[in-house]
């Protein structure tokens, strides 16, 4: 069930009144059932998978109450990873193995399985794993109520594309007696409306352009690909930040806090800052559960570089089973290492903030080409076109109106981010002003939105 669908509107109109009229266990039970119904709309066959992940993590969490043996940590982690690997990476690994054999002329034909990727598997397995690790490390107490734990794993606002919320900051609030205040209600609506604006007006509008160029890269020259890469940078930001805001807003409507997932990433002054602002719930997960256990910053310099590369390699692989994602992740890793080295070596050099922001954006922008392209060949072709000046001005044809609206939308989100980044830090919440802004956004959605019911990009991860 997509957030931007009529089904979800009906679902929400039924769910939220019932949710707020109920209390205690019935509140939990309603949330759980609703979350399973929500998930069933994507593919009911994977309900069993969701349930299995829940059982595994719940069971081992309970076992860890009286027994801290490492095996009780390793088994559930391994089970989570096996399930994730099977659905997400099995064909990739087999295919890569065949490719390797093919290099030596051993095999030619590839036998691959038809495996459907369950929506949101990367998110709910990661939530399960973080729970088990936190219990093992005694950061949180294991949850004894199965309904509560199931609700945590399957909570519909963030089930299919995050944010990845830690058990410690969520479970205790599930089913509690918090009342939705009027201000909280307005704040929730504000987040949801801005999220929908980002998705429907910005991401899907920019998607019209990027879909054309990335699907037929050979037809366009470097200039169009350059524009398209910039458009994609804003498309993926608007798409994923939009989803996150809707999820956070829906959470707030349930009186739950999910934390921030994006903090104006394109105003980052360096690549390290970018990762502190982009998909914060994932980057902090990778930091806390991989980077720090590998030694964090407390090991010698060379080891820090290796650890950074490992983390970013896994971060890339998390996004999908293709060489493109791996290259994307590792490239970010290399840039993080370069930045670390630069910062240590040239402490006294200060470049203007604007230059830093622009430079960081350009680097991130070029790396998105790997992320968006269907294959490595396509990415390389696009890079070739961008940097090969002979073809640079080839086929400069585009839909004028879409282009103008797209540029306008990019200008809007940059302006909003600029306002929050540089102009105002602690904004006083003025109800009438906020309601008026919300109305403008809704009018813009109606007038300029793209209502094709397209998926959120991060659903496929």
């Amino acid at each position, binding site marked *: 069930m997509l957030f931007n669908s009529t089904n979800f509107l009906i679902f929400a109109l039924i769910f939220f009144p019932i949710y707020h009229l109920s209390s205690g266990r019935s509140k939990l039970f309603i949330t759980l059932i609703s979350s399973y119904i929500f998930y069933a709309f994507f593919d009911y066959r994977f309900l069993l998978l969701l349930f299995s992940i829940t059982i595994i993590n719940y069971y081992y969490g309970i076992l860890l109450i009286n027994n801290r043996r490492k095996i009780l940590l390793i088994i559930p982690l391994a089970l989570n990873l096996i399930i994730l690997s099977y659905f997400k990476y099995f064909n990739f690994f087999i295919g890569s193995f065949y490719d390797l054999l093919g290099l030596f002329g051993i095999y030619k034909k590839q036998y691959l399985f038809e495996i459907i990727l369950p929506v949101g598997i990367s998110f709910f397995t990661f939530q399960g794993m973080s729970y088990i690790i936190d219990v093992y490390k005694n950061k949180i107490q294991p949850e004894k109520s199965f309904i509560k734990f199931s609700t945590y794993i399957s909570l519909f606002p963030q089930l299919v594309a995050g944010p990845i919320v830690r058990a410690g900051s969520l479970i205790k609030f599930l089913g509690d007696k918090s009342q939705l205040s*009027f201000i909280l209600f307005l704040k929730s609506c504000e987040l949801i409306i801005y999220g929908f604006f980002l998705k429907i007006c910005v991401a899907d509008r920019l998607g019209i352009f990027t879909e054309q160029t990335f699907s037929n890269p050979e037809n366009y020259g470097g200039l169009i690909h350059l524009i398209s890469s910039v458009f994609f940078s804003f498309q993926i930001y608007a798409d994923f930040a939009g989803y996150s805001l809707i999820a956070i807003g829906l959470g707030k409507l349930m009186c739950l806090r999910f934390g921030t997932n994006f903090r104006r990433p394109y105003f980052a002054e360096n690549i390290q800052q970018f990762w502190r602002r982009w998909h914060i719930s994932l980057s902090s997960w990778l930091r806390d559960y991989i980077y720090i256990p590998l030694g964090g910053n407390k090991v010698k310099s060379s080891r820090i570089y290796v650890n950074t590369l490992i983390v970013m390699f896994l971060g890339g692989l998390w996004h999908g089973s293709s060489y493109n994602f791996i290259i994307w992740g590792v490239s970010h890793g290399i840039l993080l290492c370069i930045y670390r080295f630069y910062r240590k070596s040239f402490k006294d050099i200060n470049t203007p903030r604007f230059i830093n922001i622009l430079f960081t954006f350009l680097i991130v922008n070029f790396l998105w080409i790997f992320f968006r392209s269907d294959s490595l060949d396509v990415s390389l072709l696009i890079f070739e076109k961008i940097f090969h000046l002979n073809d640079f001005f080839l086929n400069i044809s585009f*839909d004028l109106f*879409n282009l*103008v609206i797209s540029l306008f939308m990019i200008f809007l989100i940059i302006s909003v981010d600029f306002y929050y980044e540089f102009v105002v830090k602690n904004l006083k919440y003025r109800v009438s002003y906020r*309601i008026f802004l919300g*109305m403008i956004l809704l*009018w813009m959605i*109606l*007038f300029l*939105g793209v209502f094709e019911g397209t998926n959120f990009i991060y659903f496929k991860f």
Partner: protein
Amino acid sequence: MKNFILILSFIFLFILGDRIISKCLITLSKYSSLPYAKIYSGRAKSEILILGDSRAYHHLNDSDWASISRHKTFSLSITGSPMILQEVLLRDYVNLYGNPKTIVIELNALISPVDKVISLKYLGLLSDNFKQLMRIYYSKQLKICQTFNLFFLNTIDYLNLLHKIAIEYDQPKLVGEMTDNDLDNLINKEYSPYFQNTDYNVKSLERIIRDFGEDVKIILIITPFQKNFLENQFEKDDWFNKIESMIPKIIKIFDYSESVINNEYYFDDRHLNEKGVKKLLNNMNKDNFFQKLI
């Protein structure tokens, strides 16, 4: 209670704003130079009306016709338009200006699907006939549009209308001709029947003839197709005969489908280029077509 009133006021203001903004935006259509915007702002009065889809739009240029025939001519044709949409525009035209002297209909609109309707949905704010058309084919969309009027304006065609306020509309001409590669593709293309009328378009043509045939001269026309395309489409004669059998004998069909032969005159298999349009005009002139218009 106070909060409840605040929310109700917000909803009321939102709907009110939606109505006011959409009303203001649609009023701007008065200043647009786009042909079908002219219909609704009293700027389309003419003696001859041309109806059809992209083939009429490109092949039957109203300003060329007006200068040759010396009768004011206005084209209601729209790229991709089905006959049923043309009927709506015709009825709106007649409601606003009365009957024209002649209606020329390019018959390819009988084949065009109804999809184009949705991209012109802003006409729903200008025309009850158009709303009726939406009610039949896009009822869900119409309901949303009626709830939130701004959604009527959520189309690229409306933005085009706005654009043509600032920039004078100039009917685009098709430039360039079919390449050898295009011809090879056309010849080797897998057969799929083209000349297939859709019921709603046929009924629409019948209604136009029934309601206007007595007072207005109706001329049906088929403009040229590229010869390799026609060779593949062997059911064209059946199509022609079917149309001929359903119309009164007094109405004549001018078949120019094979009147322009050379490939240099074609932009693609179904559209003449700029040179081809001139060639067609010459051929029509030779037949004294323009003398028979009124």
